[in-house]
């Protein structure tokens, strides 16, 4: 078994090495072209095309088989002209991709376009070589497996040996017991009586020691008291609340590593009372392209599939259906409805950082409530926080005070008495 797998492994290795060598040879001959092509591809093509995946435009792998080089050069230079000239292939591709026009690249020379095609071919070959290398790795793994199988067989043989020896020992012991039955019975009775009296004695001793009993009772009372005290203080306080969300969204990845601003998603924070939970279309701004498939063997991440189901997005046609179902996120920060809190007042006017109240969200893989959100907590901050008076509210206030000082007429309407919300809120 070991022989076969190692032979297979060696075979796979040699094949993959020869493949890699082959590509290396072809690559060195085209290295200069491919290098130029890579730079051109990155700056001109990559925002719409990927080699192995459909994006705004088709996946480029296999394009040299699908189309002739001559046609590709014409298409890349000016696809619009090709379509207008009535080229059948051009019209078919155009229609297939929702009539999204590819920009003309008339500034490219034929050689430059050919270098891009070479680059795409090379990348394709690299992608094809990767699974072969993977197979070689797999063969190595199976070698390791056969080693494990041999080890397990050895352990099994050892175990059988031990069982055999043990059974011999028990048999001899049974013989000894049969020979001395009477003596053993008597000893057992004595032993049981002794054990019983031992337990009772221990309990009696414990009860007699009043200090020990008192201390134990005290421990129980203190434990319950502290537990009760803590529970009472945390009635209605959700500090540390970390519910399981319907999608494993990581703020550490999005706000921390990706450096997406808080307000990109929570856009209400600077202009409304609520910071607002983003609607799923905001997620789709990036996730129409990002599928995290690198970590799921080329498949879309299961967490992102939940998002696609919610917005009814079809990644193959890149279109939305109309069977949308909202994601039911679980609210973490929940002020009681009798307390009024306005985000924009704190974020825009006062300029307070999100982290002041919400903690280091950019490091939280799973968000929890950082602050207690109790009245005491609010007041403690309000007692020391200096007001930012550089805004229109205070301009108007000072203006009204000046008028009063001068003895001018000041009606209720002039200080906002006609605002609907003054009475109807």
């Amino acid at each position, binding site marked *: 078994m070991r022989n076969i797998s190692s032979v297979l492994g060696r075979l796979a290795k040699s094949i993959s090495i020869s493949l890699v060598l082959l590509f290396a040879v072809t690559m060195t001959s085209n290295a200069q072209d491919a290098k130029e092509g890579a730079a051109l591809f990155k700056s001109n093509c990559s925002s*719409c095309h990927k080699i192995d995946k459909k994006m705004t435009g088709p996946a480029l792998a296999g394009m040299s088989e699908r189309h002739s080089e001559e046609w590709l050069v014409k298409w890349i230079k000016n696809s619009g002209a090709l379509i207008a000239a009535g080229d059948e292939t051009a019209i078919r591709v155009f229609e297939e991709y929702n009539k999204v026009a590819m920009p003309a690249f008339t500034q490219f020379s034929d050689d430059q376009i050919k270098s891009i095609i070479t680059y795409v071919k090379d990348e394709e070959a690299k992608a094809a070589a990767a699974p072969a290398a993977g197979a070689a790795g797999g063969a190595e793994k199976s070698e390791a497996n056969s080693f494990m199988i041999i080890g397990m067989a050895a352990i099994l043989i050892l175990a059988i040996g031990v069982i055999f020896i043990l059974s011999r020992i028990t048999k001899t012991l049974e013989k000894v017991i049969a020979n001395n039955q009477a003596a053993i019975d008597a000893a057992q009775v004595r032993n049981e009586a002794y054990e019983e009296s031992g337990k009772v004695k221990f309990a009696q001793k414990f009860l007699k020691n009043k200090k020990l009993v008192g201390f134990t009772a*005290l421990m129980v009372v203190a434990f319950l*008291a*502290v537990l009760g005290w803590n529970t009472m203080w945390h009635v209605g306080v959700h500090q540390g609340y970390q519910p399981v969300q319907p999608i494993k969204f990581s703020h550490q990845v999005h706000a921390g590593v990706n450096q997406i601003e808080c307000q990109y998603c929570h856009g209400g924070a600077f202009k409304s009372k609520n910071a607002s*939970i983003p609607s799923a279309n905001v997620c789709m701004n990036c996730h129409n392209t990002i599928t995290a498939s690198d970590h799921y063997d080329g498949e879309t991440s299961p967490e992102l599939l939940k998002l696609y189901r919610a917005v009814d997005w079809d990644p193959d046609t890149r279109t939305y259906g109309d069977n949308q179902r909202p994601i039911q996120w679980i609210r973490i920060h929940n002020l*009681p409805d009798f307390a009024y809190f306005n985000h924009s007042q704190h974020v825009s006017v006062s300029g307070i950082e999100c982290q002041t109240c919400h903690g280091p969200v950019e490091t939280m893989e799973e968000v*929890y409530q950082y602050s207690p959100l109790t009245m005491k907590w609010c007041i403690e901050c309000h007692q020391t926080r200096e007001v930012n008076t550089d805004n229109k509210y205070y301009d108007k206030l000072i203006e009204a005070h000046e008028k009063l000082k001068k003895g001018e007429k000041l009606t209720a309407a002039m200080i906002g008495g006609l605002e609907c919300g003054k009475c109807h809120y």
Partner: protein
Amino acid sequence: MKENMLVMNKKNFLSAVCIAVSFAAVTTACGDGKTRSTGLEFSPNMYDAIAYNPDQPNNNFKNGSTAQTPPANTTPVGFDKFGADYANTPADYERAGAELVNPLPVTKENLAKGEHLYLVNCAVCHGKDGKGDGSITKDREVTDSRGTRKLENFPNPPAYLRSVAANSSRGGAMADLSAGKIYHTIFYGLNTMGSHASQLNNDERWEVVMYVQELQKK
């Protein structure tokens, strides 16, 4: 028993109480302070009013949510009718580019607002200077409960800057895009860029357009 308790040395008794309380305090403080439950609630009716919050489930509507999309052909206060005037087609993109001019005056204040909105909403892909090199287009790595792994790069959008001379996918240089074309793209999105109409209102979009047109000059 009572006598015995009284006989107990006062000092001993006090120290016993201290030990008991500190033991209880330590054991009840176990854990990292995070919990899956909201704990006890006292008179919950006072905390959660009968009125629906916008993000609450609501059985009175077919789709079960309180926040509803406005009915068709209505224009909510503070919104705009750009969507009714211009469709998401290349033809209307060109038309918007030809017809629309930025209604806001170019002032320091508007530019500052535009810069802030640009940094929040656009820079993550388009880059702080509009070079198309935002933070999510770069190689990056995260270490969390699933181990260390690389994150997928978002494709680079073309740069706005005149000095870079990149082309728009709808023809012409990025640096020559007119205000209306930029507005149309913010409103409807283009290629891999999604629509940002729900994140920015009419004025905010024009503020962003103004700032982007400043970047084009560079």
